[in-house]
């Protein structure tokens, strides 16, 4: 096997080199930048600042707002996406008419660029000429046109709606694979035993779907915690900073206020939150009796 060994490592080399250069080393440098002062590259200059950047960060109300915004955004959107995702996956798993069209409907929101999707929604949310106000007023549901992305907390709610629309179908796709892995016989046996559709869902589908649900939750939570282009293009983080996420805040500190070290600290905090959430999910998944 000696020859195989060497060939295996050789074939792996280009990928590992790229991942090291583009992902691993930059993240390590972000860590170092966060404990340094007045430097954009730790190879160039490294003046150890201890935890000074972190102290300053946590004393900044805007940063604490960004943390709260990010957690609220993920905490509301991910469970909603899961519910819609399960419903959609159950639908997809049936012999629906117009199968191609339904699958296209599932794939389309995933395939659209998040940044441009945010623009499309900003146009529909437009107060003066937007689709939503036109439809609601046409239906006689509102008197005054609503400023969907110009108020607190309605801007955050609008942003959440866009995110749920964009990603529920991705959750459905992930769950569909899990659904299709459940053997038909299990359902047939339950039906013979007289279980109705509702109890079949709670006693068979949901428990057997648990691993797929956890994977979907993991991927979606991590993604929601790093939301960037959605607030960038939909609300610009506003009004005030009521929709500014951690990613957007960190980006602005680095590239608008040109403070690499403070921005790096904000990114490390974000990274830590993501890691904690990921670990929680993975521990839960490990403990799964069905996995």
């Amino acid at each position, binding site marked *: 096997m000696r020859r195989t060994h060497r060939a295996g490592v050789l074939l792996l080399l280009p990928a590992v080199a790229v991942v090291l250069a583009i992902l*691993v080393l930059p993240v390590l*440098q972000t860590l170092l930048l966060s404990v340094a002062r007045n430097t954009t590259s730790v190879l160039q200059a490294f003046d150890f600042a201890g935890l000074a950047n972190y102290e300053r960060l946590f004393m900044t109300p805007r940063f604490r707002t960004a943390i709260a915004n990010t957690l609220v955004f993920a905490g509301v959107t991910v469970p909603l996406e899961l519910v819609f995702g399960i419903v959609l996956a159950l639908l997809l798993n049936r012999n629906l008419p117009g199968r191609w069209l339904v699958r296209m409907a599932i794939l389309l929101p995933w395939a659209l660029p998040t940044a441009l999707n945010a623009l499309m929604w900003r146009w529909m949310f437009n107060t003066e000429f937007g689709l939503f106000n036109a439809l609601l007023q046409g239906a006689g549901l509102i008197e005054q046109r609503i400023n969907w992305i110009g108020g607190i907390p309605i801007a955050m709610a609008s942003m959440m709606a866009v995110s749920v629309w964009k990603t529920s179908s991705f959750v459905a796709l992930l769950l569909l694979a899990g659904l299709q892995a459940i053997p038909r016989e299990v359902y047939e046996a339950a039906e013979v035993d007289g279980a109705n559709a509702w109890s079949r869902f709670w006693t068979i589908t949901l428990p057997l779907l648990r691993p797929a649900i956890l994977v979907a939750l993991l991927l979606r939570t991590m993604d929601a915690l790093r939301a960037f282009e959605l607030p960038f293009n939909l609300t610009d983080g506003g009004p005030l900073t009521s929709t500014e996420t951690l990613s957007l805040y960190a980006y602005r500190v680095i590239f608008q206020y040109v403070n690499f070290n403070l921005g790096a600290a904000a990114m490390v905090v974000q990274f830590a939150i993501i890691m904690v959430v990921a670990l929680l999910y993975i521990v839960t998944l490990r403990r799964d009796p069905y996995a």
Partner: protein
Amino acid sequence: MPERRASLRDRVALWAIVAVTVTVSFFPVVWLALTSFKPAADIYAWPVVFWPSPFTLENYLTIIRESRELLRYIANSFIVATATTALILAAGGLAAYSLTRLAYRGRGVVLIAMLAVAMFPPIALLPSLFDGFLRLGLLNTYTAIVLGHTGLYLPTAIWILASFYRTIPMELEEAARIDGASTLRIFWSIILPLSTPGLIATGLIVFIMSWNEFPLALVLGSSDAMRTAPVGISLFPGEFSFPWDIISAATVLAVLPVVILSAVFQHFIIGGLTAGASKS
């Protein structure tokens, strides 16, 4: 789920569900397209004009006449996404093959490490990538954006590819090895042909992800000539407010490729997305 002969009532209900799903999913794109075919006066009108009348290509012609940079952004996206896809399939194909089919110590660790680094938030890469590419004189080049995207999506691609490679029976490879074929020869003449569907699926997903990527393209290609479609359209300046007449037309052009790819290769893409996730 057991399928019985659907009664008329059931069939009507199912069609209603399909209609709602399709409407909810399609309406933003449909509204965008309708907007792009309206004269500007009808775009900025209250009560809202729902149907373009007259139906006009004026907004598209304006892009060609006055805002040709928007077409350049779309061309940039093609170059970046194509190069990224090629690089990822080459490096990722070899790596996934090595990680799933060749026996050596530590490959399990590498595979798990790939999953872990796929979780890195792209924003956390930006300070180093910006500073690094600036020092190398590569800021605002295709090279920087392509390398960034390749690194960003390579781990995900390796996971999707690995799940496809695992479905190829090991016996084929062992037989060839006994016949004296080299590792590269086995990869080239046995694995590659058998894994074509997996490569197509992975390539499509990577292409779409690179086409859609925003933060790296924003920071590494911020000069006007290097903007990709999502970045260029988002940063498009308006005199007083965002010019939705031009923007709607440009956005239609910029989302058209991913919509067409999804429509034509629906099956591959769904297969690839579910294969990668269900194995992890």
